[in-house]
């Protein structure tokens, strides 16, 4: 997991939107903006073994091209309490969301980061500094809650009320987060990953199968209702 920055006059994005980052002679990957300040963009990139490995390996002097931002981010309202669940490389858009949303009045965040083991947990301090309540969860119990992030979210939701559950991570995690929110009758938004190639809603490759929705143009963040309704929305 590395931190990369690059200069690019990319228009300002909303948390949850993504860009396409192109490393010449290697490839282009969709990345959520983790941090931005003026022309500086930062990403958190997980090493998946393909293009991402090369992106992780770029030296600070390398030149990357960035196009975007694309898609739709997380809904944001002041005066609400948000339960935020991140897994793996799902952290960046969620942290960016907190960074933006914390400027709003009477807005509360609980941030859960799930991973297999303590080594894979990162940036917890940083998120704490942003004013969120932070709870780690590890499958092996090596740090924080022993179990998956959504189970932890469920137990926290027993104790206190939240207006919304936002999630970003593996699709199985998103599925259980969505079910949990439905059960609790609170707003759900999740950021989904598909095979994003054109990123502009023309090639169809990032379809949410059977729903007529495109991750790149209609998402990557979808609400529970939109996911349920699909093209009937």
């Amino acid at each position, binding site marked *: 997991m590395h931190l990369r920055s690059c200069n690019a006059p990319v228009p300002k994005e909303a948390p949850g939107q993504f860009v*396409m980052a*192109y490393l*010449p*002679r290697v*490839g*282009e*990957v969709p990345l959520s903006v983790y941090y931005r300040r003026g022309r500086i963009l930062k990403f958190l990139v997980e090493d998946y073994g393909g*293009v991402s490995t090369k992106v992780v390996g770029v030296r600070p002097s390398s*030149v990357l*091209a960035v196009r975007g931002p694309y898609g739709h981010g997380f809904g944001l309202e002041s005066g609400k309490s948000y339960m935020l669940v991140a897994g793996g490389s799902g952290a960046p858009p969620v942290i960016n969301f907190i960074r933006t949303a914390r400027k709003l009045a009477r807005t509360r965040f609980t941030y859960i980061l799930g991973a297999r083991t303590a080594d894979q947990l990162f940036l917890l301090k940083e998120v704490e500094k942003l004013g969120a309540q932070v709870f780690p969860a590890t499958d092996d119990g090596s740090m924080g809650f022993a179990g998956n992030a959504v189970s932890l979210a469920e137990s926290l939701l027993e104790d206190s009320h939240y207006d919304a559950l936002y999630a970003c991570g593996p699709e199985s995690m998103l599925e259980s987060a969505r079910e949990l929110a439905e059960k609790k009758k609170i707003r759900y938004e999740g950021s989904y990953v598909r095979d*994003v*190639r*054109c*990123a*502009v*809603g*023309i*090639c*169809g*490759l990032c*379809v949410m*199968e*059977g*729903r*007529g*929705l*495109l991750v790149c143009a209609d998402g990557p963040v979808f609400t529970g209702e939109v996911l349920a309704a*699909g*093209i009937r929305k």
Partner: protein
Amino acid sequence: MEGVNTVPRPIDLRAKVGRLQLDSPFMLASGILGNEHSLIMRAYRAGASAVVTKTVFNNARSGYTPPIYFENEYYALNAVGLPGTGVEHFSEELALVKEESKPLIASVGGLSPGEFSHVAQRVIDAGADAVELNLSCPHVAGTGSEIGSKPDLVKEVVFAVRDALPRALIFAKLTPNTHDIGELGKAAVEGGADGLTAVNTLRGTGFDVTLRAPLLSHGYGGVSGHALHPVALYAVQNLRTVLPDTPIIGVGGVYTIEDALEFFIAGADAVQIGTAIRNRGLQIFGELRADLTTRLRNARASDFLKFKEELRI
């Protein structure tokens, strides 16, 4: 009588491309969102009169890795590389399309006449109302325009498909990367095509000067959008001249009703929309229908087919 409420005359937007009956002349072009059943249905609901699917081959193809798409204000460049799950799986997708009243046209690819005819047979069996043979993709080796730029190969491929499917509706999609598109059109008709789709993208490329790198991972790709429009219009005009009675679908840079009307003046029977979907969304279909209705009304015409005949020059 002015001032008195009058019921506006009903306007009939129906179009006909040979035996293909359309509720308007505005179809979705191949490769644009037509790779999965729910996207196809979304296009129908947005007002597309027909959908041409993503080109399907016999076997699965992974296509090219990103970057596969570039755009500026003048054109789009793409080299998607014809990814797909293969005709077996794609036939299941076709079967899931629930839209009885609008034609579903399967775009068929192949590396040989045999593959074209086999895939065509499979998609027709799976419920496609017509096939469009992709004889024109400019950036995949061994298929597309490598076949489609040679009249004899065009004829051979179309003939193979016609032979396998004597009664199917067959369109041949042609490449503009040629000196004589009329010859390609004639070859397709001689091979047994019912109609022509003109055109696919033009070969093109571009570079990121700062990165010193091609804009597309494949190194080059196909030019679509505004830049393609005058070339596509010439193709239709030329085909209409050499083939006065062949059904022709125009495609290339249709963004507005004017762009579409130019195709009808040139001799097209219907048009397909591709790149403009990126800029104007699928709602472009509803907008074009509304704009065409207005044009017919202003011209005191009640029927697109007659209106179109009068446009021709």
